[in-house]
């Protein structure tokens, strides 16, 4: 009696690597050729994938842009001390010196109220209105930078409280506290994008699965016939896996194109807005490496979606 797996005669004799690769190449382009016969259906699926993926990738690019915006402002933890109007320049200079000697402060810069007014006159566009004023309404301001160890909310709060004790100081304002908050919000947003990426990635997986499932139904006869003439599982799966690849690849490419197109459309208004704030801020496009990662991610989803549905289908057929 023959053993269970005994004397299987695999056609190794006539097998060679070159023709194996040729089969792959052939299937690869044949799957593309099939799309050319139904380009509308194909592009619909690719379009859905592209739009689905452009949402998380677009959000990620936006967040990176906002992060680079907050990174451009390096005054992160500066504190502005607005002095009382009664304080004269000499007193202000003395206070600045004493603050500069404070061990908790690395730097103290006095902004002379006359100089400040002059600057305001030049840049604000209220020049003529300011000329009408008899007195300078601006106080002297001292801008201080705390030492690095104070670079946390609790320590900064204690320093601020300490400074508020001084009689000459009317108002203590943390200039860039909002940047911390922005960064905090951006971190939350980034987490949110991760979740959206997972959900929409799952959506792409399902889109590809469903499309391939329809394709399987349309080609049921072909699958049955190739099985009957001795096709292996991988031979039958191959064209569908390649279909999945093309969906993923083109979906990913179009997603990147969509995102960069959107950035290009927004960049003009964004930089004119930035100009109003004296900033040379420009939106950055999606970096090449990120685009590559998104495309790879999309290909992965396309292949997996196809693989799941085809292997399930074949497992049901096999006995």
């Amino acid at each position, binding site marked *: 009696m*023959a053993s269970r797996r005994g004397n299987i005669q695999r056609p190794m004799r006539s097998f060679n690597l070159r023709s194996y690769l040729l*089969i792959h190449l052939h299937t690869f382009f044949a799957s593309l050729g099939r799309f050319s016969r139904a380009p509308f259906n194909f592009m619909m699926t690719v379009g859905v994938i592209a739009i689905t993926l452009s949402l998380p990738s677009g959000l990620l690019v936006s967040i990176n842009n906002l992060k680079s915006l907050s990174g451009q402002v390096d005054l992160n933890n500066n504190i502005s001390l607005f002095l009382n109007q009664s304080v004269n320049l000499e007193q202000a200079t003395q206070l600045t010196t004493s603050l500069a000697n404070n061990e908790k402060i690395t730097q103290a810069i006095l902004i002379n109220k006359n100089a400040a007014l002059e600057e305001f006159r030049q840049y604000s566009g209220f020049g003529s209105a300011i000329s009408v004023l008899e007195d300078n309404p601006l106080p002297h301001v001292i801008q201080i930078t705390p030492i690095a160890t104070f670079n946390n909310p609790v320590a900064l709060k204690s320093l601020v409280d300490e400074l508020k004790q001084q009689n000459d100081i009317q108002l203590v304002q943390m200039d860039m506290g909002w940047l911390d908050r922005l960064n905090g919000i951006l971190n939350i947003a980034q987490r949110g994008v991760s979740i959206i990426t997972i959900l929409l990635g799952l959506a792409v997986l399902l889109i590809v699965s469903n499309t391939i499932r329809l394709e399987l139904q349309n080609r049921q006869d072909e699958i049955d016939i190739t099985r009957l003439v001795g096709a*292996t599982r991988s031979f039958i799966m191959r064209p569908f896996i390649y279909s999945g690849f093309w969906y993923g690849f083109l979906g990913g490419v179009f997603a990147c194109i969509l995102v960069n197109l959107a950035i290009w459309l927004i960049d003009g208004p964004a930089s004119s807005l930035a100009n109003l704030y004296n900033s040379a801020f420009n939106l950055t496009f999606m970096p090449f490496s990120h685009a590559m990662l998104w495309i790879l991610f999309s290909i992965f989803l396309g292949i997996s979606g196809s693989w799941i549905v085809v292997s399930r289908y074949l497992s049901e057929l096999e006995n």
Partner: protein
Amino acid sequence: MLQFINVSKRYSSGADALKNVNFELQKGEMAFLTGHSGAGKSTLLKLIAILERSTQGQVMLDNQNIGRLSKRNVPYARRKIGMIFQDHRLLHDRTVFDNVALPLIIAGLDRHEIQRRVRAALDKVNLLGKEQRYPITLSGGEQQRIGIARAVVNRPPMILADEPTGNLDPALSEEIMQLFEQFNQVGVTVLVASHDISLIQRMGYRTLQLSQGEMVNKDG
């Protein structure tokens, strides 16, 4: 070549399709399989093609118990059998050439070898010169001959035909049967399922007869 030893097949519905079937086909033998609809012909063919597995007993093909093959090895066992169907089962979006070449592409042969063998097979069934036509543009008899070319192109040791003349007129049926005889003459084992009794009798080969799942005659 082919041996059924105490083979029974019960479907999950509880119906007994085959009951304790025993028979043997020698290498190079030609035989007919006959019986009414529902007698178990289809089930018997499905067991040989490994589309179904027997509930009991052994189906031996070329000294190999194909009922016990692992899924991974099933395709390689199928390549030993050239199968022919009543409805031809051709791929209508591919040319005659591509249809016949399919088993060779699956086996991973190189292009020149494929070309050579497809032309040889088409020559045998008298369809040379129609390689680039689509099956739908050919007659029923010609389509059946494409199916036959596809079944023999891989030079399998055995041919299995399920009602190959079911849709053909007597003259064409005769022609198809003569093709099977030719393959049989070069040593291929042939099993033809048919209920065309007059044709079977005229041919005069051994006939296996199934009735309600039992092999009632295996020497006729």
